[in-house]
């Protein structure tokens, strides 16, 4: 990777009707922060590894007469290191600035946005089903995930969509645009993988759990225009925004439903051909995850596929990489990130009633317009761990 790569402007994002309007200085700020993240990932972060190899590890070994054995030992030792402290302080501050910037843009036009979203939603009233009886589960109500104030669900006034709009604006800043014009690199990766590996698979009914603003389910709905797609989430502002966004993008085969994936009594057994999640499991919990997996098993048709985009499990990597990927667990309000990435996924699937031997693990990557958004590979030097457009997908085909 050349260190002086040109990054796209936030303006390269595909405009759609509900995306808040950003003025000259908003765009400049979003771009400056995007470049700050890129600078931190490509030029500052490599120093953290040097600090570990050259200072922290030798000191640990001298004191303990052994190497660190867990990522937690590394973290405890690194927290005393000045370089790590400084990088961490900068990274945390950059994340907070991203959210503040997105929120300024969204809050400034909060009324206009909610009106526009309401109008689009009224134009297709049958594909949005909000349900005030659905409670926000503890895994997201106890903490604002990735330092996003208001998390996914907070409403500051009736029919508010601020948190969703701000998420749509700000995602680019953290990923440096690598998710593509509609931040849908993950969904595109699934479509791409299906087209290459399973060209004959034509799901008729698709369920996406934890859809947020629906950015990654839209490509699947477009790839299978005859399919009935149902996207669920617990967060009302996100669902309102997601639905309006899909309508604005001309996608009419997705129904957005407010529901908790732990129990979906409204859907019949074996009624979906494809059930997906994207970057979802690390925001659940030890109790929610088995419930949701059991629900998936109940809802999936024999012969159907369930596929989940996630970051790779920790057992596949060295301790340093585990430690650096685990930063988000403790320092970016993602308490379940680490525990989830420690889980034995085949065992989880098997407890949920699946045949664990059927599970597969595959690397999938976003297929975005590289002319605009550039290209970055996993494991490339300067990768900002956990933020590259490369995922580990796991899944299984349910035996007919």
């Amino acid at each position, binding site marked *: 990777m050349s260190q002086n790569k040109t990054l796209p402007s936030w303006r390269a994002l595909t405009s759609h009707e509900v995306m808040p309007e950003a003025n000259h200085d908003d765009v*400049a700020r979003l771009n400056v*922060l995007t470049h700050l993240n890129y600078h931190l990932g490509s030029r500052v972060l490599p120093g953290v590894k040097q600090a570990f190899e050259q200072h922290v590890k030798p000191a640990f070994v001298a004191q303990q007469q052994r190497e660190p054995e867990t990522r937690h030992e590394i973290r405890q030792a690194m927290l005393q290191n000045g370089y790590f402290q400084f990088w961490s302080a900068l990274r945390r501050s950059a994340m907070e600035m991203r959210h*503040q910037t997105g929120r300024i843009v969204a809050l400034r036009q*909060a009324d206009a946005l909610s009106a526009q979203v309401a109008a689009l939603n009224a134009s297709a009233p049958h594909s949005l089903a909000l349900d005030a009886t659905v409670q926000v589960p503890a895994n997201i109500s106890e*903490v604002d995930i990735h330092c996003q*104030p208001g998390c996914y669900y907070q409403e500051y006034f009736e029919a508010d969509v601020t948190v969703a709009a701000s998420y749509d604006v700000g995602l680019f800043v953290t990923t440096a645009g690598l998710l593509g014009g509609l931040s849908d690199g993950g969904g595109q990766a699934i479509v791409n993988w299906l087209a290459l590996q399973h060209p004959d698979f034509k799901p008729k009914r698709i369920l996406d759990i934890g859809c947020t603003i629906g950015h990654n389910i839209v490509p699947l709905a477009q790839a299978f225009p005859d399919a009935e797609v149902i996207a669920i989430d617990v967060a009302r502002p996100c669902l309102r925004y997601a639905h309006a966004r899909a309508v604005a993008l001309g996608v009419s085969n997705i129904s957005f439903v407010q529901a908790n994936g732990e129990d979906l009594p409204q859907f019949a057994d074996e009624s979906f051909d494809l059930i997906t999640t994207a970057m979802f499991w690390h925001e659940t919990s030890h109790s929610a995850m088995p419930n949701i997996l059991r629900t998936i098993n109940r809802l999936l048709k024999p012969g159907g596929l369930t596929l989940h985009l996630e970051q790779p499990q920790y057992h596949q990597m060295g301790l340093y990489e585990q430690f650096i990927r685990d930063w988000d667990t403790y320092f970016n309000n993602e308490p379940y990130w680490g525990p989830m990435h420690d889980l034995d996924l085949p065992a989880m699937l098997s407890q949920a009633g699946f045949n664990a031997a059927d599970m597969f693990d595959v690397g999938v990557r976003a297929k975005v317009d590289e002319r605009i958004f550039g290209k970055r590979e996993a494991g490339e030097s300067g990768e900002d761990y956990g933020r590259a457009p490369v995922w580990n997908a796991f899944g299984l085909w349910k035996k007919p």
Partner: protein
Amino acid sequence: MNSNDIDKIELSGTKAKGQRPWFLQDKQTEQVLSIAMALATELAVTRERLATLEAVLQQQHILTADAIEAYRPSSAEVAKRSEAIQQYWAQILRVVQQDKEALSAGDKSMEQLQAELTSR
């Protein structure tokens, strides 16, 4: 209902729920670092605006440096600028605002939450 009753400046910089880690040995030093980073961001934004302005001016041959010096904003413009400057300081001092909110937030640490999330 609309957003009239909410304080958008305060809300744009509001603290995320969850105890904030402080990395530097001295918390105030880290707050100052955070302020410096926000300032640096705003300076870069301003530079970009000036670059745009210069480009536009050059393209259109309509303004000179004199005209800028002689310009006096109207009272409506003064009011607009005042609002922008209030947002500006709130942005720069976000870290202090969030620390204020933390005083009464009763946040749990990630370790506590992790224990809860993994025991349930």
